[in-house]
């Protein structure tokens, strides 16, 4: 029989990381096979991509540090990188998983002690971080191991350290968050938590991107890369100052003697002790905060005075059905943090990400700008801003998740006298409102960056809107044909929706294809605008011709 604590921790892990593999019967269907293989390949690609980055980073650093006899700093750098990443992740995950499913209130009535409840949740947060920590350290260990041939204890010490690194950050995250949850009603608001978590995540993504871009820009220059990890670098100083990282380094460094093993054990002991201490100390406070977490504050209006209408201005006023349908689409998307942050907010996030890349890759981009300067004098002056605008205008995932997001409401919607054409038109209009804004932001950034002339700017904007409209129409068609109808969490309809992935990859492919075609084709200055405008107008016209009938058929037969 497992202990109560272990049972709860395993339940948290299983319910959070539940990957349900298809059954043998399901695997007979080609659609399931394709989907499973696709997800598997996607996962492998992601791992390979991240793995490649860290392998290249470590190899380049090693090449730079070895001549100086400082190759050991590679391990301190890896331990510091892992520590920084798990530290940020610990706070983000502890915050977002504080009461993620509402199941926590159910656990409160079961015979768990408060430290068991908090400890089990800490295990869940720790589990996610440990995966990341091990991934980073194993790559550094493998490279150092192959190049230097350290003793076997080096690997054991390394693994123990990888498992130890996330312990203290997890404990610290809860040491900060539990009192915060108790002190502030604001922090117990689920929406607030979602927004804070979302923005923290984006900030983290931007910072991580900056770090990766800064390193990849030095792949060809081992001396510059070594500066990242030399004894006086920020990473090395950070590593020495943070006890778990310093202990991890000592565990690597002293692998040949028992001291290394002691350092690894000390690291584990320190982390486990702190985590257990926080669980014991703050268990009761955690339970109190959970009890208060689901409090809602319904904004009750004062009853109207006798004879006066209870309705405020703008309430219960007739509007055209299409306007009402579009307003419903916009409200339902923008008021759901999960949808907003992964949808329309991309229009802000993407330019910020580009700014980070520009900042990190300044030198490389200067060279690239010089290389494409002649192109920017020609049609590139409007084509590049148009590409930015088209990408941003079609990257909000509004159209390609429009039907999936509405899945739960479909039976009710279909019982209303709404013509399918109007229903889908509202979805497209919603996407297009944001596409126009996205195109404006994207084109505006391009125009400002390349000092595009007024006429070229107008052409770029037109072209961006045509391309993004075509892509949004394609996305809506895709989600009408293959909507994700059954889901429990909005994240499944948006972020985990394969249609969103297909749409964004198609957008990237098409925009990339256009860039390649522009380099290959030899046309007059505005010939490209004519060609691309016509090419993308064709699917738009075809959409108007064929989609409404297709959508009406699907609308009638979808089984939510």
């Amino acid at each position, binding site marked *: 029989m497992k202990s109560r604590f272990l049972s709860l921790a395993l339940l948290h892990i299983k319910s959070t990381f539940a990957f349900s593999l298809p059954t043998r019967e399901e695997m007979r269907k080609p659609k399931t096979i394709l989907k499973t293989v696709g997800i598997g390949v996607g996962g492998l690609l992601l791992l390979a991509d991240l793995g490649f980055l860290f392998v290249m980073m470590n190899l380049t650093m090693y090449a730079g540090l070895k001549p100086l006899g400082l190759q050991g700093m590679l391990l301190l750098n890896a331990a510091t990188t892992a520590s920084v990443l798990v530290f940020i992740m610990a706070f983000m995950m502890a915050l977002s998983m504080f009461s993620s499913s509402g199941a926590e209130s159910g656990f409160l009535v079961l015979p768990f002690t408060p430290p068991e409840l908090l400890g089990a949740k800490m295990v869940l947060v720790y589990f996610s971080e440990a995966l990341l920590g091990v991934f980073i350290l194993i790559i550094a260990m493998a490279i150092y191991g192959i190049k230097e041939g350290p003793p076997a204890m080096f690997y054991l010490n390394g693994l123990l350290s990888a498992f130890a690194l996330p312990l203290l950050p997890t404990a610290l995250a809860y040491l900060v968050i539990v009192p915060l949850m108790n002190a502030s009603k604001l922090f117990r608001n689920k929406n607030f938590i979602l927004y804070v978590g979302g923005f923290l995540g984006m900030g983290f993504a931007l910072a991580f991107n900056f770090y990766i871009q800064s390193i990849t820009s030095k792949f060809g220059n081992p001396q510059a890369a070594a500066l990242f990890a030399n004894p006086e670098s920020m990473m090395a100083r950070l590593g020495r100052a943070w006890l778990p990282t310093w202990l991890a380094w000592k565990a690597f460094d002293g692998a040949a003697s028992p001291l290394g093993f002691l350092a690894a054990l000390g690291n584990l002991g320190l982390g486990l002790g702190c985590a257990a201490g926080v669980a014991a100390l703050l268990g009761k406070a955690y339970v109190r905060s959970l009890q208060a977490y689901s409090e809602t504050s319904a904004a009750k209006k004062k009853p109207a005075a006798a004879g006066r209408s209870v309705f405020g201005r703008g309430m219960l006023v007739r509007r055209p059905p299409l306007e009402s349908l579009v307003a*419903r689409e916009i409200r339902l998307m923008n008021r759901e943090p999960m949808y907003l942050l992964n949808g329309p907010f991309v229009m802000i996030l993407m330019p910020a990400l580009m700014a980070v890349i520009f900042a990190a890759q300044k030198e490389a981009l200067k060279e690239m700008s010089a290389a494409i300067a002649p192109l920017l004098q020609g049609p590139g002056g409007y084509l590049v801003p148009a590409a930015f605008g088209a990408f941003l205008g079609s990257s909000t995932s509004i159209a390609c998740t429009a039907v999936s997001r509405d899945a739960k409401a479909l039976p009710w919607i*279909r019982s209303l006298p709404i013509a399918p054409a109007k229903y889908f038109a509202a979805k497209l209009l919603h996407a297009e409102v944001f596409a126009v804004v996205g195109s404006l932001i994207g084109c505006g950034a391009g125009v400002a960056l390349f000092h595009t002339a007024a006429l070229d700017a107008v052409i770029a904007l037109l072209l961006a809107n045509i391309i993004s409209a075509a892509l949004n129409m394609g996305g809506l068609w895709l989600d009408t044909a293959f909507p994700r109808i059954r889901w429990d969490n909005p994240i499944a309809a948006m972020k985990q929706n394969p249609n969103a992935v297909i749409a964004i990859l198609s957008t990237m492919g098409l925009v990339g294809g256009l860039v390649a075609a522009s380099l290959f084709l030899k046309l007059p200055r505005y010939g490209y605008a004519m060609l691309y405008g016509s090419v993308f107008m064709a699917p738009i016209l075809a959409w108007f011709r064929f989609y409404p009938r297709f959508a009406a058929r699907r609308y009638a037969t979808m089984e939510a």
Partner: protein
Amino acid sequence: MIELSGISKTYAKSDRKAVDSLSLTIPDGRIFGFLGPNGAGKTTTIRMLCGALEPSGGAILIDGISMREKPLAAKRRIGLVHDNPELFNRLKAYEYLDFVGDVFGVSTPERRARVEEYAARFSLSDSIGSPIGSLSRGMKQKLGIIASLIHDPHNWVLDEPMVGLDPQAAFELKAIMRERTKAGKCVFFSTHVMEVAEKVCDELAIINKGRIIFEGTIPALRGRMAAADAGGAGPEGAARESAAAGATADTANDSLERLFLELVDSSNGDGAL
């Protein structure tokens, strides 16, 4: 009036008929109850008759208008109280009502008058400006009921409407049902609580495994069971004996429940009575 003629439904991901050749006529001026155990096909039938689900076969007429041929016109004559009030937690109550009002083309004065009346009856006036997510389940149910009446439909269809309602709201709901049938309108509602059906319905139909196993009034149901039982010691016999002995209301309800269970059991074994 709602007429269902031989409607069937087989879901795409199932080889079993959820509803099998079901025929029903729900006349105007009557409260018609639709009973059945969980998974019997009540919600599937309601979704089909409201146009939310396409039947695999059969015909649906709403006041003589074919749901297949003129779906929008047919839907305009229905007000549906959905079985899931947890749909639009991100909208405010009045935004939801406005949406339904706009879709049905209800004028501003009409929708205000109706919302004002029903919100007062269901004690919801103070919450019209609140986000739906901040309302309790019962309040959401009341909001769904108000939305379904915003266009004063001729046919009022309610899927498990009593779930989550407090006694006062349940009383109001039953009163509104009666007012509407008095005005010559049609009320069709599903429930799995026999007691509710007995107190509210003029007529009822019982569905099990997608097939109608009884259609008629409660006295007719008792009579049919008695005929089937031929004076034996079955549930009908018990009901008769209880009535004769002047049994309490609880005992009578209990025997009605057993009557329902017996009917469902017998249909599970050897088909409809």
